[in-house]
């Protein structure tokens, strides 16, 4: 992370410009890793590359954000001041050549000679700590707060005095300084270069300037384990894996919780499940003679029987192929009943796979009743994305949610089954087939509550208990669990039977579960008596 020196915004690693203020981050103060030479942000304690400690001075705390060094911004120099400064500069050089002494500091534009030569900062040699890691100085409080007075570390690093060894950290490791070639003394330092030596090179330089440092062996955390660590790891492995030898005559007692279903028991159970599924193929629905349709099934059958020919019903196939085995027979029974009543069906889905399941159901219906045609008697609208928002849009305008149909890609107005439909209020009934309760809840909240259209939900048996409150409140006129509902519907609606044999399978499976429950407790009771 790079903290912007101007606004203190935290930018991601590698950012060249501040995300908040847009300023260049090239002048940011780095801390050089003593181990790998990577440049880290000033507030880093550990190197971002090799995780070596960045050698804080003894007792030194990581610098708070509020004390970050501000970049040097050159003062505005007028032409008159520029001329004066250059004159002073030439005079100082002449004096130096006369005396043979080297000026300790070059005056910058806007600085008076007294500031350049006698000022507390400008005149004094710039320390290495200032050049590389201000956080190590321990004197951050003395740094000038104003932007104009602050001295850029990179600018300071240009001074020949700062080149060489770095400061000595707490661990006695010398922190290397950034190696920068000494400036050409024949070239005067322009104000732009003083302000930002990397000006114009932002796009050429990566986040880490290409400063090469000689590799120094780290005295910090090493990735390679020591001999002691190897020995301890081996010992731990032995203790964790190897079992202690048992004493003579000792008996291994497993905890009771470890006594699970034995393999032979599991095999027997799986064979019984297989039989429960296969045997009904040969009994062909003998159990269906015992089936009595429940009230909610009878209510839906009555509703469909009372629909006039040409009535419009919206069906939403909101389930996945995972539950197709349970919901498909009920869907087929209801669609057959609606087709027999010559009801127009508009079909959609709020799940991407649902419309494929609907297509298969209607293919069967079309094969059974060739007079029942696509576009005239039924239309597949397709998948409606957006969940709640999608359902809300159905209330507003059907044409906004579905511009064209799913199979023929024609506008809804061109299909006779949908030509007179504008909103959901034009439908006589809504039937939703779903494998999860949230989908039905969305339909009730976003559609039924707004339009008061008679609403029916055909769901998986696992979902049924979660939707009973909506049925009791009257928002769902019928709530039918599909497992037993398909057989009940075929009987109540006198629809072509295709799910009757399933009643045998359900009965066999439920009986198996009952037997398992009873046998399980009998076995546990017997073991308990033995144990006591």
């Amino acid at each position, binding site marked *: 992370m790079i903290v912007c020196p101007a606004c203190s915004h935290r930018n991601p690693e590698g950012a060249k410009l501040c995300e908040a203020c847009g300023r260049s981050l090239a002048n940011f103060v780095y801390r050089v890793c003593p181990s790998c030479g990577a440049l880290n942000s000033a507030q880093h304690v550990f190197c971002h590359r090799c995780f070596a400690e960045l050698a804080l001075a003894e007792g030194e705390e990581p610098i708070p954000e509020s004390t970050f060094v501000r970049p040097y911004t050159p003062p505005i120099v007028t032409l008159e001041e520029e001329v004066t400064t250059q004159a002073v500069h030439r005079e100082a050089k002449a004096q130096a050549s006369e005396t043979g002494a080297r000026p300790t500091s070059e005056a910058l534009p806007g600085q008076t000679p007294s500031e350049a030569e006698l000022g507390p900062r400008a005149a004094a040699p710039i320390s290495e700590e200032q050049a590389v890691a201000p956080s190590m100085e321990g004197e951050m409080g003395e740094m000038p707060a104003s932007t104009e007075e602050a001295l850029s570390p990179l600018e300071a690093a240009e001074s020949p005095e700062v080149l060489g060894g770095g400061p000595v950290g707490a661990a006695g490791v010398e922190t290397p300084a950034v190696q920068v070639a000494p400036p050409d003394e024949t070239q005067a330092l322009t104000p732009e270069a003083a302000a930002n030596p990397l000006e114009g090179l932002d796009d050429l330089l990566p986040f880490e300037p290409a400063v090469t440092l000689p590799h120094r062996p780290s005295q910090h955390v090493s990735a390679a384990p020591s001999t002691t660590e190897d020995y301890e790891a081996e010992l731990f492995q032995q203790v964790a894996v190897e079992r202690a030898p048992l004493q003579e005559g000792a008996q291994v007692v497993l905890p009771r919780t470890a006594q699970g279903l034995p393999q032979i028991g599991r095999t027997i159970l799986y064979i*019984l499940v297989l039989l*429960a599924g296969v045997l009904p193929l040969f009994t062909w629905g003998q*159990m269906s003679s015992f089936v009595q349709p429940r009230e909610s099934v009878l209510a839906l059958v009555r509703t469909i029987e009372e629909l006039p020919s040409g009535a419009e019903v919206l069906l939403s196939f909101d389930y996945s192929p995972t539950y197709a085995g349970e919901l498909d027979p009920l869907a087929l029974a209801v669609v057959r009943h609606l087709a027999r009543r010559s009801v127009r069906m508009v079909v959609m889905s709020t799940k991407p796979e649902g419309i494929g399941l609907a297509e298969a159901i209607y293919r069967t219906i079309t094969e059974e009743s060739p007079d029942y045609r696509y576009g005239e008697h039924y239309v597949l609208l397709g998948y409606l994305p957006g969940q709640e*928002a999608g359902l809300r*849009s159905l209330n*507003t305008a059907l044409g906004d949610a579905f511009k064209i149909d799913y199979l023929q890609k024609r506008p809804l107005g061109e299909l006779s089954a949908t030509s007179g439909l504008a909103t959901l209020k034009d439908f006589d009934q809504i039937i939703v087939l779903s494998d999860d309760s949230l989908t039905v809840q969305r339909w009730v909240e976003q559609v039924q509550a707004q339009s008061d259209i008679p609403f029916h939900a055909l769901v998986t*048996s696992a979902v049924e208990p979660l939707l009973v409150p909506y049925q009791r409140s009257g928002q769902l006129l019928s709530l039918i669990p599909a497992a037993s509902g398909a057989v009940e519907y075929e009987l109540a609606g006198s629809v072509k039977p295709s799910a009757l044999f399933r009643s045998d399978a359900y009965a066999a499976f439920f009986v198996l579960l009952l037997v*398992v*429950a009873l046998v399980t*407790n009998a076995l546990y009771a017997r073991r308990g008596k033995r144990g006591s």
Partner: protein
Amino acid sequence: MRRFLPIAVAIICGLWVLADFFVSHPLIDSVGAKLLEGVMILAAFALFAGILNLLGFHARRISKDQKDWGYRLVLMVALGGTLIAGIVLPGSGALSWIFGYMYYPLQSTMAALLAFFVVSAAYRAFRLRNGEALIMLITSLVVLLAQLPFSNRISPYLPLLRKWILDVPVTAGTRGIILGTALGTITTSLRILLAVDHPYAQD
């Protein structure tokens, strides 16, 4: 401004759609419909972005020759084939064939395996350990028995007992969950509308 703009847009859009729910006015209705249409477009685009992300994820691992790269390759080929069947050859019936003869049977097979797991789990779940387990066992037995086609022959009270279980204790618990969820939804909505929370503009 950088933070203010998304918050302002979110509040205005949220209040507008909320007003559309309660007020019937041509302007509110039309703008609300456009906003909802935008949500649907975004949702569809999210699906597309998800596909791209999935492709990128597996392509990177295949290029690095990571473990199970073969399965990843099969996934990408299947995804590409289905996309081609759906987009390039929409009327050829290839998509219906893939759905009907590959996706549907595989999903149904996975669901059918649940029968074996349910019976195995019943071996442990129906064990009588304490009072709570006794209540669960009795309730399960009643509901199971009542779902048998010949449950009336066993006892005429079994279907009534099952109905009572669903209508009273189950409905009470479910209503509690629904009401709690609704209160939580209202609270979350208010926090977003009042800009207390703005998850759409994470810092």
